[in-house]
């Protein structure tokens, strides 16, 4: 059996599973040494079923322990390892080697628009500051005995935007955010959308007011980079358009 199996960790198999050598170009930056970020290349032996995160692990564990990146769950849930892979924002743990062109080097660098801390780690604080500003929590005055009842269709209204894992892949793919760090960014608007269109919430007008700002939804230039970058497949630009319409014509 020569085909690749789902055994992602390279367990010593009886039949040889084909491997290939991949060149990883990683944009390194050590604030103690470097003035500017620099590219460094590593050759790693990979399986087709391995992910970019596995390649980074191999580099860190076997070649250069100083390589710095964030990751926690490694299964596309925690949203820690968003990075720019071959020029596009992706989660390293959800990008398979076989989906990339391995005849060329694979370029990995930190996400754009947030202050670079070290190697692939950026300062996420401006991102979370915008997130906090839209009041991303349920605000309801009712005190029900058990739960706040919601119909299935009311729940479905904001289902798409509940999927956000706050990885910042969308916000750091936005050309407006790169040049204007004051812009709330797609992720904050997505999380505002999640509560604005929640029938149980009572503060949607407050959030719409916050987003009806020079640096709010009107900064969106519909480049669709966010929708294409989202690892959860959230239709981000659609959500922003719905918030724009809610500001202009009220909720529907």
């Amino acid at each position, binding site marked *: 059996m020569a085909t690749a199996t789902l055994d992602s960790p390279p367990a010593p198999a009886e039949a040889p599973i084909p491997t290939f050598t991949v060149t990883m170009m990683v944009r390194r930056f050590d604030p103690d040494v470097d003035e500017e970020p620099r590219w460094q290349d590593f050759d790693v032996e990979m399986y087709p079923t391995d992910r970019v995160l596995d390649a980074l692990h191999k580099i860190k564990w076997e070649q250069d322990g100083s390589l710095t990146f964030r990751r926690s769950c490694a299964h596309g849930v925690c949203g820690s390892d968003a990075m720019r892979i071959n020029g596009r924002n992706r989660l390293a743990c959800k990008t398979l080697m076989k989906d990339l062109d391995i005849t060329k080097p694979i370029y990995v660098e930190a996400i754009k628009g947030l202050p670079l801390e070290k190697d692939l780690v950026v300062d996420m604080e401006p991102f979370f500051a915008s997130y906090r500003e839209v009041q991303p929590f349920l605000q309801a005055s009712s005190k029900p005995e058990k739960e706040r009842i919601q119909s299935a269709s009311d729940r479905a209204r904001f289902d798409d935007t509940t999927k956000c894992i706050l990885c910042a892949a969308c916000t750091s793919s936005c*050309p407006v955010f790169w040049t204007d760090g004051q812009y709330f960014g797609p992720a904050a608007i997505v999380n505002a959308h999640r509560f604005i269109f929640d029938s149980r919430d009572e503060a949607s007008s407050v959030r719409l007011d916050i987003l009806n700002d020079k640096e709010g939804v009107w900064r969106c230039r*519909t480049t669709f980079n966010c929708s294409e970058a989202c690892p959860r497949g959230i239709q981000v*630009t659609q959500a922003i358009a719905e918030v724009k319409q809610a500001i202009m014509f009220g909720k529907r």
Partner: protein
Amino acid sequence: MAIEEASTLTTARSSSKRPAGTLYRGNTGMWSWVLHRITGVAIYFFLLVHVLDTAMIRVSPGAYDAVMSTYKNPIMGLGETALVIAIMFHAFNGLRIILIDFWSKGAKYQRLMFWIVIALWVIGTAGFAPIHLANVFSEGH
């Protein structure tokens, strides 16, 4: 390590480090926005000149005619062609953006609409440019 990182968060020491790496590989949406911005700025500068030259008619008809006659050369003719091509893209793509914002299915069909914009743009250019360039290079209509 964790303590060090926490301290860098509060001091914002690395704020001047702007990562400039590979060009972001956006899709049709991003490039249509880039083109929209470029054509928009170009049209804006044309409008500045256009307001000035049209205002010459208030100065005197002679001055207006003098300015207009300086436009009658092949270089300005090529510029006019570029201007109309830029306006056509900006206009069609502007309609696409309006539909994205106001039509509930706009975001879903944005890519299809982009290719429709490109098709209309090519058709419009094919209809306009040959006739206009023939006029420009045959000197006078």
